[in-house]
Structures are given as C-alpha cells and as structure tokens.
C-alpha cells in the first residue's frame, strides 16, 4: 500500500443525473480529469454537455451524483471552488460599455482581487490574448476573434488552475482558431487543467488528452483520441462522391469492412484499401470522385452517435 494517496483530480464527476420536467438530460455520467491535461466533452446538440458544465460549476444542482471541483464539493462549496476556476462561455458576454482593460479590471474585482494586482496583470493577459496595446479599445470595435480572445484573457484574470471552455472557437476564422489552439496548448504546458466542449472533431483531436462522447445524456465512450480511433474504427477511409457514387458503393460493398451512405456520398471503412482502390481505378468514371484518408475522430463520433440531424 502506498503511503501517499494519489492527488485528487481537479475535476471528478460520479453518477451525475439531471432532468427537467421529467425529461432526462444527464443520465448518470462519471469521469475524472487529471491535472494539467485537456479533457474534451463531445456530443451532438442536446447531448447534455452544457448541463454537465453548469453542474460542474455549481450553477445547476444535480438530481443525483457527486462532483468535486478543485478539491471542493459542488454545489455546496461552489463559490470557493470558482475562486480557482476560469470560464470561457459559449456566447461572449463582455461588458459592451467598457474598454478592453476595464473589462478585465471589473471582472478581476469579482474574485476579490485588488485594483493594483489586476492592473499589474493586464499587460501580460493582453499579450497572451494577442491584444497587446488594445487596453483602451472599445468592445464594439473588436472583431469576433478579438472578443473571443479577450473572453479567454478575462477567464485567466484570477490565474485559475482549471479553465472551462464552452465551444471556444465556434464562429471564428481559421487564423483565429489556430491562435486559440496554440494558446490553449500553452495553458496546459503551464500545468493548467482544461475542460473543453466543441463540435469540431479536428479541434478535439488536436487539443484533448482525453475526451468523452455524450449522447442522450449518457457517456458513450471515453479515452484518448488516438486510442478511440484505433479501438472503434477501421484505420482507412475512402469517401466516394459524384455521379452514381451511392449505387456503385452498394454494388461493391464487399470491398470494405463497413459501408455508410449519406445522401450521394459513400464512406468505405477498411483495414486494407488496396482491393477497393484497384476496383475504383479499373472502373473509372469522370463523374465519380474519391478521397482516400486516414480515419479520424469525426468518423468515430458519427459511428457512435449516428448521422441523423439533432435539434
């Protein structure tokens, strides 16, 4: 038996349940996030991600289950726990009447920080967010990407140990997304723990050390992105599209381990693609095109949660 107990994870959830008006939104999920890692919560709209985040922050009391955040019981000690937590909400709620610096100053005060201490942090926070020299800029004059980065800087004003990010790059252009990704990598390198929700599978694959896929309030699968891909999906994918793609695919379905057809696009999931590629070359058609690629997290996600649209 070890003399030293392992350190408590920054966030641990067990048996979490929540329903609204008889409709179950979270149906008994549990996970733990090790310190200094990025944990992803993925799932289609309505899967229960936002409710889970709200429960973790103590903004919604669960019907059942246990949550510990930063060593504190949630929701009983939520205020104390949030002292060491930063939040980037899904929708920007910066103060439109304030300048960039005033937004950080006013927000820092909510954590009980003194004005001098906050002002001393502002240049470094803006530097981190790629907003150096923008102290006096008004919020209305900022682009969507700049607002998002300021929201990230605001979430760091109390130098938190744990940062929650609810779809941090939704609506951003590729340049802005890459900058946010790079900054989030820096945060985990500094030892901070990140909990992230996203609809972008490339983002989750790139950033998350571990992730959980939620669907209909239950945890479908949890693990490291590469491990999930290896465990749940054939390694190679051939996407076939164009004239008669679906019909051709149905006629040749034996060439892949698994075939999925969505509209006029067919997805072959294969361990060995050589026979399929040979058949495609032999039966070339100018109107039919294909892409051969490695399986990715999106394939896993679609396999586990299905292709039907969610509200």
């Amino acid at each position, binding site marked *: 038996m070890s003399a030293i107990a392992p350190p408590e994870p920054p966030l641990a959830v067990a048996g979490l349940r929540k329903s*609204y008006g008889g409709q179950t939104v979270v149906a008994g999920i549990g996970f733990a996030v090790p310190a200094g890692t990025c944990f992803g919560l993925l799932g289609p709209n309505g899967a229960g991600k936002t409710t889970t985040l709200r429960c973790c*922050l103590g*903004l*919604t*009391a669960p019907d059942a289950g246990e949550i510990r955040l930063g060593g504190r019981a949630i*929701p*009983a000690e*939520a*205020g*104390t726990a*949030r*002292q060491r*937590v930063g*939040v980037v*909400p899904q*929708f920007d*709620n*910066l*103060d*439109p*009447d*304030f300048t960039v610096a*005033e937004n950080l100053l*006013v*927000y820092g*005060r*909510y*954590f*009980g920080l003194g004005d001098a201490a906050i002002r001393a942090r502002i240049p470094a926070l803006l530097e981190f967010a790629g907003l150096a020299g923008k102290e006096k800029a008004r919020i209305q004059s900022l682009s969507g990407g700049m607002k998002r980065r300021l929201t990230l800087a605001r979430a760091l004003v*109390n130098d938190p140990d744990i940062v929650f990010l609810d779809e941090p790059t939704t609506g951003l252009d590729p340049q802005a997304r890459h900058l946010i990704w790079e900054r989030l990598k820096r945060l985990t390198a500094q030892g901070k723990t990140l909990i992230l929700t996203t609809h972008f599978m490339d983002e989750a694959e790139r950033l998350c050390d571990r992730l959980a896929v939620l669907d209909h309030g239950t945890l479908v699968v949890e693990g490291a992105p590469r491990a999930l891909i290896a465990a749940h999906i054939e390694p190679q994918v051939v996407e076939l599209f164009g004239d008669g793609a679906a019909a051709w695919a149905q006629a040749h379905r034996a060439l892949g381990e698994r075939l999925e057809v969505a509209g006029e696009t067919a997805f072959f999931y294969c361990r060995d693609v050589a026979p399929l590629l040979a058949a495609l070359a032999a039966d070339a058609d100018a109107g039919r095109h294909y892409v051969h690629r490695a399986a990715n997290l999106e394939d896993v996600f679609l396999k586990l949660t299905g292709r039907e649209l969610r509200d």
Partner: protein
Amino acid sequence: MSDPRSRPYALPRPGLRWLPVWRRNFLVWRKLAIPSVLGNLADPLIYMLGLGYGLGGMLPQVSGVSYVAFLAAGTVVASTMNAATFEALYSAFSRMHVQKTWEAILNTPLSLDHVLTAELVWAASKSLLSGLAILLVVAALGLTASPLALWVIPVIFLTGLCFAAMGLIVCALAPSYDFFMYYFTLFITPMLLLSGVFFPADQLPALVQTLAGGLPLAHAVQLARPLLLGEVPANAVTHVATLLAITAVAFYIACVLTRRRLLK
C-alpha cells in the same frame, strides 16, 4: 451549505461580496452621468413647477401651504420611485437577459444573491441621486427651510430600496421589455395618483383612501411631506417599518424567482 437549487427558498445571504457588482454599475453610470442626471431631473421638475405654479396659482392653500410647497415632497418621492423602478426593470433586465452580464458574474465566486443585492442597492443609490437633485432644487426655490428636511435623504434611500425590490420581482418574471408596460399601467401610475402626491389623499372616497393608505408610495409621502414642511411625521415608525417590511419581502420574492429563472 448554500446549494441554490435544492434550497430555492433559502433566505438571501448577501455578505459584502456584492460591492464589486455595484461598482461595475457605477462605472457604467459614470460614463453617462450627465445625461442621466439631467434626464432624471428635467421631467419631475417640469411637472412640479408647471403644476405647482400654474395650477397652484388658481388654488387656495392646500393642506395649509402653497400648492407648489405641497407638491414638492410628492415630486421628490415620486421621482425616486420612478428612478428605482426604471433601473430595476429596464437596466437590470438588460444586464440579466440581453447582455448576459449576470451570467458572466455567476461564473466567478459570486452568487446570484450577491448580484441581486448589488442590483437592489444600486437601483436605490441611483434613485437617491434623482431624489437628492429634486431636493436641492426644492431647497434652492425656498420651498423648504427646516433642517428636518435633511431627514428626507434617508427616506429617499428607503423609498428607492422598496421600489427597487418590487421592480426586481417584475424583472425576474419578464419575458421581454414589453412586459414592463403592465407594471407601469397597472401599478405605478395608479399609485402615483392615489398616494397623495398631487392632492391630499383625504380627497379620495373613504374606501379608496383605506386601500391607498397601504401603498408604499403613500407611506413615503407621509414621511417626506411633513419633514419638508419642518414637522415631525405622525406615525413615522409605522411608515418606516412598513417600507422596510415591503423591501424585505419583495427582495426575498425577487431572489426566489430569479433563482428559479437562472439557476435551473
């Protein structure tokens, strides 16, 4: 334990951490202070001077004083009521529902009780400025000379707290800005006419008088008017206690309703 959802009916436990939220509202106000004060001052002054001297010129004395001196106290508390009500309805609703300012604050160590306490005190603070501005004009016009008039200042603040607390209930229930029209039409405007602001309440039919006597604005008028005229108000303790009680009950209801709305 301070679990907000499993105990939605718990008494508010504000502590002192609400102060940064009050300071946030103050910082916004400071940027718009001059138009805000002018706006709060112009409207009631036009009524007071127009009605007071215009209508008052045709009237004999009202309750033993000139009509404009009678109207002064009513104008002070009515403009306090309006300022507190507007802040707790439109401005608080903007911060809660449109700008999501409260949502941002709830992600910090602060709780909804802190936010609501700050909004209550802030709306009362802003209405204090409105009431004070009218009070200064009243003093400058020589409509009050007694040092007792200084006691109107806490009366203004208490009136502001009372109407802010009631306004926060309406804010918690509002689906949109349009909803506030009901509150003004069904509650604020009748109260303005029944509370002895423009004419002595004893002009009303006996039954209406009895009912109107319980209105918060009526209590505020019955405190402010004698004080401005240099007299100690009759039943002052009852009036103060009633305003405090309405504030406490209304604020409690506002807390419960807002928790149910936001901490689902």
